[in-house]
């Protein structure tokens, strides 16, 4: 049972990296998940798909700069301590 808090942190970092790597124009628009393709009516509650698209767009916008820093720190730590 080697599932520790540290491996959870590593997995979270990899997942956030995966979300940040999705390219807006080359990929998301082609599968219909672009940021401007999810405008639903205002009276309706947003469905799961539009919530997901919103989430992806917000994660990409917010985490762009902090990810650079966190990734550099992780790379240095992994190089030094394996």
């Amino acid at each position, binding site marked *: *049972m080697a*599932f*520790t*808090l540290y491996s*959870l942190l590593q997995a979270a970092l990899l997942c956030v990296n995966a979300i940040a790597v999705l390219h807006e124009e080359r990929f998301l628009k082609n599968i219909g998940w672009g940021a401007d393709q999810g405008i639903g009516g205002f009276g309706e509650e*947003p469905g*799961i798909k539009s*919530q*997901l698209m919103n989430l992806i767009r917000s994660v990409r916008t917010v985490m762009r700069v902090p990810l650079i820093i966190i990734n550099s720190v992780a790379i240095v730590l992994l190089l030094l301590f394996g």
Partner: protein
Amino acid sequence: MPGPASKRRIPVSQPGMADPHQLFDDTSSAQNQGYRAQRAPSGLGYPAASASPQAAFLADPVSNMAMAYGSSLAAQGKELVDKNIDRFIPVTKLKYYFAVDTMYVGKKLGLLVFPYLHQDWEVQYQQDTPVAPRFDVNAPDLYIPAMAFITYVLVAGLALGTQDRFSPDLLGLQASSALAWLTLEVLAILLSLYLVTVNTDLTTIDLVAFLGYKYVGMIGGVLMGLLFGKIGYYLVLGWCCVSIFVFMIRTLRLKILAEAAAEGVRVRGARNQLRMYLTMAVAAAQPLLMYWLTFHLVR
């Protein structure tokens, strides 16, 4: 001094009054008066003991100043921490979850193991704030999950010890692993609550409290497994799994499916069905995790 003591006691409300806003009985003022009266005469006694070398050290003016400076620095630091602690850890909100008493703990443990006869699962409110756990058995608390988690780690150490597999770092590994699963569960449920756009008053701490209740069943299962072998383990774990399943469904139904389930009507419509699926998924994950976290402890 009886004068200041009696003046200070009057504004404090009587202990034992059933005021749901008051989380704890305030006995601090009586004790403070007692301690301060005790400390004053002993403080005067220190410089008089000139035979010991410590008095000589204290009498030196430079070290006196250093001590005074150090104590004032410590007092300033304490003030700073007290002012800013509320920004990082919601201390007052956490206090609500620990306002429990013995009767509540007993009733809640009974409810966790046998939830089938309990009729009313609603949390009582008092002017828009939920009533403290010691006044309502349905309110979530953090005392039982915290104690159950620590007991689980200790019981896991005991189980490993009886099989000659124990080493001290394994205890830390068990604790960290259980904490990691808990964090993962909380994040997964928060994500699915966001995706399904549930407008609920289920806070993160509430969620941690509900997810921590399964440790009680896990402890029971492992202890029975230690005493009676695999048969006892499976029996007790099976019983606790079903009880936790029913408990979680009945509790979460009121939080997630608030409008529909409050009257007890059958839920219809795509949105309510999705919420029902979510509740069932959360409740079904509990027995799975209970088995996953304990099966390697019982041989």
